[in-house]
Every structure is written in structure tokens, then in C-alpha cells.
């Protein structure tokens, strides 16, 4: 039970990172972006490539940072991947979503995002093959926190959680202490009024894609560290991430963080009562429960 809770918190840390960008895009651009989860796999695979490149060019960075199985080159690779994935998100908007949006087909954006998801997912499959990849072939030994009940935690998982919380805290500081953050929140609340107050809407939308893509990349790497990299990981992550945004309330960054942890914990606690094969269905149950009890989520506002 406690083990499930701990695993749930760890799952929640990457779901939250993924949900933050999704909730902002859904709120500001007003469409459910089904390709957001593909940014996680894109980020994970970009980091895989960068890690290999950095390790080859600068072998001294490829040393493990004990007790973690992570290496300095992977950490560098994460940072590069954040930038590359953020720019890719921006490029997707430029090439596809912006054009569909400007044709006045707001509803069609959802369709376009499904199409994009199919393309990205399968191109990754073509490039990297369908078999799983790992950042580190070494087996990371878990630390035993308690023997009765048996509770295991891997050092990598602790790193993932702390790094995720740190990123969320930095984002919190940006949103609550900088005028850039105010501008972002202003656009989320009332885009027209934000423009009246001198906020450049196009630039803000670009910033949202960059932030969303960057955080998605980290989330993808963390998923890869916790599990493994597979080309279809986006397919398995899309529903939990959507559930996190709905539980938290669409448009609320803090809601997305909380929603991510709630969905992560619920998915793992469900293992207590449900066979593990049913885990993919848990996010739907969460969505339906929220829609029944509190349709606009924990922090959301009624907005059609």
C-alpha cells in the first residue's frame, strides 16, 4: 500500500510536468491537443540521442553520478532536449496548428492534433525501431526503506521527484514574481484585455509552446528513467495527462500539478483493488468521476 503510494507520487511527478504544458495550450488556444504526449516521447528520444553524442564526444561526462544511474551527459542531454522539443512544439504550431486556426476551423484543431500524434509516433518508431530503449543498461539497485512492509525506492526515482518539484517551483516563481509570468496569466484569463495592456499575443503563444515542450521533454526523460523508452509511450501517456488537466481544471497550472499527482497516485493505488491489466482504464474513471462531481476540476472555472 505504502509502496503503491510512493510509486504513485513518482508517476505523478512526470504526469504533472506533462500536464502543465497541455493545460496552458488547451486554455489559451482552446483545443485538446492529442499530440502533446508525443512531445514527451520526442523529448525522451532526443535526450537518448544527445546522451549518446555527448558520451562519445566527452567520455568524462559519461560517468555515473553515484548513487544514481544517471550520468552528467544525460543531464546535459535533458537540457538540450528541452530546447529541441520546445522548438519542435513551436514548429508544429507554425506548420500545422496555426494554419488550421487561421482558417477559422477551431474544432478541426483536435483532428489535426490526432493526425500529428500519429505521424510523430510512427516516425519515431521508424527511426528507433519498435523495441524498447534504456538510458542506462546498468541495473539500478533499490534502497530498502523498510522490510516490513517491504518498501523500495531507487535513487533515480528520488532524483526524478526532486528535479520535477524544483522545475515546478521555478515555474511558480516565474508565474508569481515576474511580469512575464503575469503576462502569461493575463493571456490565460482574458487574451483581449492582455493585448489592450500591451501584451503581444503571438509571442505569448510562442512562449507557451516553448515552456510546454520543454517541460514535456523533461517529463518524457523521467518516464524513460522510471520505465523504458518505447515509440508508443505517447499513446500510453496521453490519457493520464488529459485526466490530470481535467482533474486540476483546464487552464490552471497549479491544478495540472495537483491533478498529475492525483492521477499518478490513483493509478498506482488502483493496483490494490484491480488487476494490473486494468491500469489503462483508471484515468477514464477519474475523468468521469470529476465530470460527475466537479465538472470544472479543482481549480478550473466555468468557461465554454
Amino acid at each position, binding site marked *: 500500500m505504502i509502496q503503491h503510494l510512493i510509486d504513485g507520487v513518482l508517476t505523478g511527478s512526470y504526469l504533472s510536468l506533462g500536464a502543465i504544458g497541455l493545460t496552458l495550450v488547451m486554455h489559451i488556444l482552446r483545443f485538446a491537443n492529442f499530440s502533446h504526449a508525443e512531445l514527451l516521447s520526442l523529448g525522451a528520444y532526443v535526450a537518448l540521442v544527445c546522451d549518446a553524442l555527448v558520451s562519445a564526444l566527452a567520455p568524462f561526462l559519461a560517468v555515473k553520478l553515484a548513487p544514481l544511474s544517471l550520468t552528467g551527459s544525460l543531464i546535459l542531454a535533458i537540457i538540450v532536449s528541452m530546447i529541441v522539443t520546445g522548438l519542435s512544439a513551436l514548429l508544429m504550431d507554425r506548420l500545422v496548428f496555426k494554419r488550421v486556426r487561421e482558417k477559422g476551423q477551431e474544432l478541426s484543431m483536435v483532428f489535426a492534433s490526432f493526425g500529428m500524434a500519429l505521424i510523430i509516433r510512427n516516425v519515431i518508431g521508424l527511426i528507433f525501431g519498435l523495441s524498447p530503449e534504456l538510458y542506462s543498461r546498468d541495473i539500478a539497485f533499490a534502497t530498502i526503506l523498510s522490510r516490513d512492509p517491504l518498501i523500495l525506492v531507487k535513487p533515480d526515482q528520488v532524483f526524478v521527484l526532486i528535479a520535477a518539484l524544483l522545475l515546478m517551483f521555478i515555474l511558480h516563481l516565474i508565474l508569481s514574481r515576474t511580469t512575464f509570468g503575469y503576462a502569461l*496569466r493575463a493571456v490565460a484569463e482574458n487574451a483581449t484585455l492582455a493585448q489592450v495592456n500591451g*501584451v503581444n499575443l503571438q509571442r505569448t503563444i510562442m512562449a507557451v509552446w516553448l515552456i510546454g515542450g520543454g517541460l514535456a521533454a523533461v517529463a518524457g526523460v523521467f518516464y524513460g528513467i522510471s520505465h523504458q523508452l518505447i515509440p508508443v509511450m505517447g499513446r500510453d501517456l496521453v490519457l493520464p495527462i488529459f485526466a490530470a488537466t481535467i482533474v486540476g481544471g483546464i487552464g490552471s497550472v497549479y491544478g495540472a500539478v495537483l491533478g498529475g499527482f492525483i492521477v499518478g497516485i490513483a493509478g498506482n493505488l488502483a493496483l490494490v483493488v484491480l488487476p494490473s491489466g486494468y491500469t489503462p482504464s483508471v484515468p477514464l474513471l477519474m475523468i468521469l468521476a470529476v465530470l460527475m462531481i466537479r465538472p470544472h476540476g479543482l481549480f478550473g472555472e466555468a468557461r465554454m
Partner: protein
Amino acid sequence: MSEAILEAYAVTAGYVPDLPILRDVSVTVQPGQITLIIGPNGAGKSTLIKAIAGLLPVSGGHITFAGRDITGIRTDQLSAHGIAYVPQTDNIFRSLTIRQNLDLALRRAGSEAAARMGLLFDQFPALAAKQRDKAGTLSGGQRQFLAIAMALATGPRLILMDEPSAGLSPKAAQEVLEHARALTARGVSILLVEQNVNQALRLADHCFILAEGRNQIDGPAEDLRDNKVVGEIYLGNRRVGAA
């Protein structure tokens, strides 16, 4: 009239290209004056302000500000030109604190920001007292003052105000309008749309009357106060206590 700070000439505009709501409307604002636009419901008053602010496509005519053509201006460029716009409703960010609202408005002020913030708080002591509260907690009158403070933050030469007294108590409405008057003493020009005709006419310098998207008459506010035609255009359609 060549010294007008704002001149809208034969403006045709609307939400949809084929269905203009404004047809050939011309309005001028003299520096340091309050220019009032009134007219029955649906006359196109708000539409005119939105067209000037770049929120609606202008399909005919042109708009100049301080001698420069600003027709179809990008809304986020208004403040850079020296124009501020106070929308009728939803004119503050409820989820931000009062201070954050003002910080946002002062974003481009650079090193002057702190000094200007001080001046604004001197001018609106009620806001200073609540600066750490969410703007959504303010009363209707205080929200209007915050919206005006945000408009002033950019140091504008012209403020477009869309029914600032709407939804306020008579006392609060009076305060807001008197504040607008006081601003003109400092050289700010105001284009004011109001439903509160009697009060506004006592305050304004010049007045334009619109109906059905067209100019009707205009003249010094003083003269229009007792004008019979105004009563005819107006009283028949006038909404009482309209928000």
C-alpha cells in the same frame, strides 16, 4: 480643427466584413478635452471604440492619432502610441493581485516603473491599501479605478473609456466621472462612451450623437443639454438603468 489629437474619418466597421455596424462615422477629439459619444442602444458606440482600438476590422475610412495613421492598429501597440483603452466589462485581471495588475501595465516603463507605481497609489489610495489582494475581490467602483489606473500607467495622451459608470452605484459613478474630468486638467484627452447621459453631458466638452451606426448631430456638450432633437433621438429608445 486641424489640432485634433484623434480623428476618425468616415469609418465603416463591423464584426463581419459584409455587415458593417458603423457606416461613415466621423469623430474628432480635441486635446485636453472630454469628448462624449452617446446614442441609443445599438447605435455603434462601443463598436466605434473597438474599431479605434484595433479590435475590429475597419473596412472603410481612416483613423489618425497625433497626425499619424493608426487605422487597423495592432491592439498591443496602442500603449506604445500613447493610447489607453478601458473596456466596459472584464477590464482587470481577476486572478492577479492589484499590484500584479499594475506591474503588468507598467511592464514597459523600465526604471520609471517604481516611481509611477507610487504616483498611482497616491492617486488611488484605496488600491494601495489592497495591493496584495486578488483584483477579483474588489468592488465594482474599485475595479473601475484599477482599470483607470492601469490605463494611466502607460502615461497615455488619450484614453478611450467605454461606459466606465456602467453597473456602478450613482455615487461611485459620479466619482469615476469626476476622476475622468480631473485627468483632463493634466492634459490627457478622453473619448468617453456613456449611457449615463445627463451626468456625462454636464462633464464633457464636446458631444457626438450616433444612432443606427451613423453620425446624427454633434456640438458643444453645453448646447446639447437642452437640445430638443437630442431628446427625440434619445428618450424614445433610452434604456433606464442600463448596465
